[in-house]
């Protein structure tokens, strides 16, 4: 039963990806791609990966689609180029790349086919599954992996987010006169005012309970960024900038990174390694309570601040040079 459901979902993923590539209208292609993202999140949930499914649904189908739509509406006035290269000979346009890609696909699949034999747990993963509770005090093994066993990789990822935010801010800075939009109608504004506290509560629950339930810093920060994006769209960029100014977003983003590094340095100060959790003086607490798992709640908050402030800064930088009409 499960296998046939997964087969149908895989088929739809392949079909919608093909449609997204072949469609000429870019708006429809973007919506189809977002639909592929939602289907992939469902497949991840069925393959027993709740953290990944949550993050995929929020980031890839929510945030990236809104960035897509902003970038597309920015370049709406330029004419749409033709689909394939006109100057190339006709065999080079579609046939040869399709052939090359299929050969590559067959080679890759041949390689993967021989690896899909008996599935057994590798040694490192068996160690993580067995010993996470006593070595970190957390219940979410993937969260413990991200913030304790491999916390250094998470620090590198926050650096990547910082680089992306800096790049977008530098590229889209200055130049045009900033004109604030008026947002949507009164009904949507009141409805949004009703819903926003609940969305914020949901974001906080994903963020703060990241060491107990699926979630953590990345999905939680992304939902905070989604709230900022909703405020930009519904109330207008002027309102959003006056409530959460760009300066405070920068401070929050840098504060997240600094908090992360400070918590790591605390580990060095106590004689254990950088970013160490239980050997440093962080108590494990009772498993399953909010204040457990050592420094993982602090690191979750730091990552959430970083991701939320960074992604909303990116969106704000993209949308503020758009001359919004009275909508």
């Amino acid at each position, binding site marked *: 039963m499960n296998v046939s459901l997964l087969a149908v979902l895989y088929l739809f993923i392949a079909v919608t990806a093909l449609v997204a590539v072949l469609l000429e209208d870019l708006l429809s292609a973007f919506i189809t791609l977002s639909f592929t993202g939602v289907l992939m999140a469902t497949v991840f949930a069925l393959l027993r990966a709740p953290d990944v499914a949550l993050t995929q649904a929020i980031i890839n189908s929510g945030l990236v689609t809104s960035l897509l739509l902003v970038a597309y509406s920015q370049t709406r006035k330029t004419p749409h180029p033709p689909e394939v290269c006109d100057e190339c000979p006709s065999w080079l346009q579609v046939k040869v790349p399709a052939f090359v890609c299929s050969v590559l696909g067959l080679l890759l699949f041949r390689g993967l086919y021989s690896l899909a034999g008996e599935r057994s747990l590798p040694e490192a993963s068996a160690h993580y599954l067995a010993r996470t509770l006593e070595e970190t005090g957390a219940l979410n093994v993937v969260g413990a992996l991200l913030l304790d066993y491999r916390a250094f990789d998470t620090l590198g990822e926050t650096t990547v987010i910082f680089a992306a935010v800096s790049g977008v801010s530098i590229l889209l800075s200055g130049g045009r006169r900033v004109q604030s939009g008026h947002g949507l*109608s009164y*009904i*949507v504004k009141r*409805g949004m005012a*009703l*819903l926003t506290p*609940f969305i914020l509560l949901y974001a906080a629950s994903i963020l703060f309970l990241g060491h107990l339930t699926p979630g953590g810093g990345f999905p939680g920060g992304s939902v905070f960024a989604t709230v900022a994006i909703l405020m930009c769209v519904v109330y207008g960029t002027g309102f959003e900038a006056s409530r959460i100014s760009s300066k405070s977003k920068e401070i929050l983003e840098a504060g997240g990174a600094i908090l992360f590094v400070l918590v790591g340095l605390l580990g060095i100060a106590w004689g254990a390694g950088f970013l160490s959790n239980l050997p440093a003086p962080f108590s494990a607490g009772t498993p399953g309570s909010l204040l457990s798992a050592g420094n993982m709640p602090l690191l979750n908050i730091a990552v959430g601040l970083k991701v939320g402030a960074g992604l909303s800064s990116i969106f704000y930088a993209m949308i503020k040079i758009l001359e919004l009409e*009275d*909508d």
Partner: protein
Amino acid sequence: MILDVLRFTGGICIAAGVFFSFAAVVAILRFPDVFTRLHGSSKALSGGAILILLGALPYTGTVSGAMKLVLIAAFFLVSNPMASHAIARAARKRGKEENGQ
């Protein structure tokens, strides 16, 4: 015994919800105008999604899971008409009062 009856009712609700969602898709494909498409699809989709979520209630094991489903249904009930209103208003402002695309 009572759980089986509840689950059967839940199954019927889910099937009805699927039918309404399918009707929403048919509305988008078959109606001639933006406004008629929006009208048909948003009404049918609100009802369909609520029915599916409420039909899944007997299948959750715990009370907290059931409360989460009710909360999701309430959230959807508030936000879907709001989104349809925003789309319709934007379409009206773009000058689609006549029979546009």
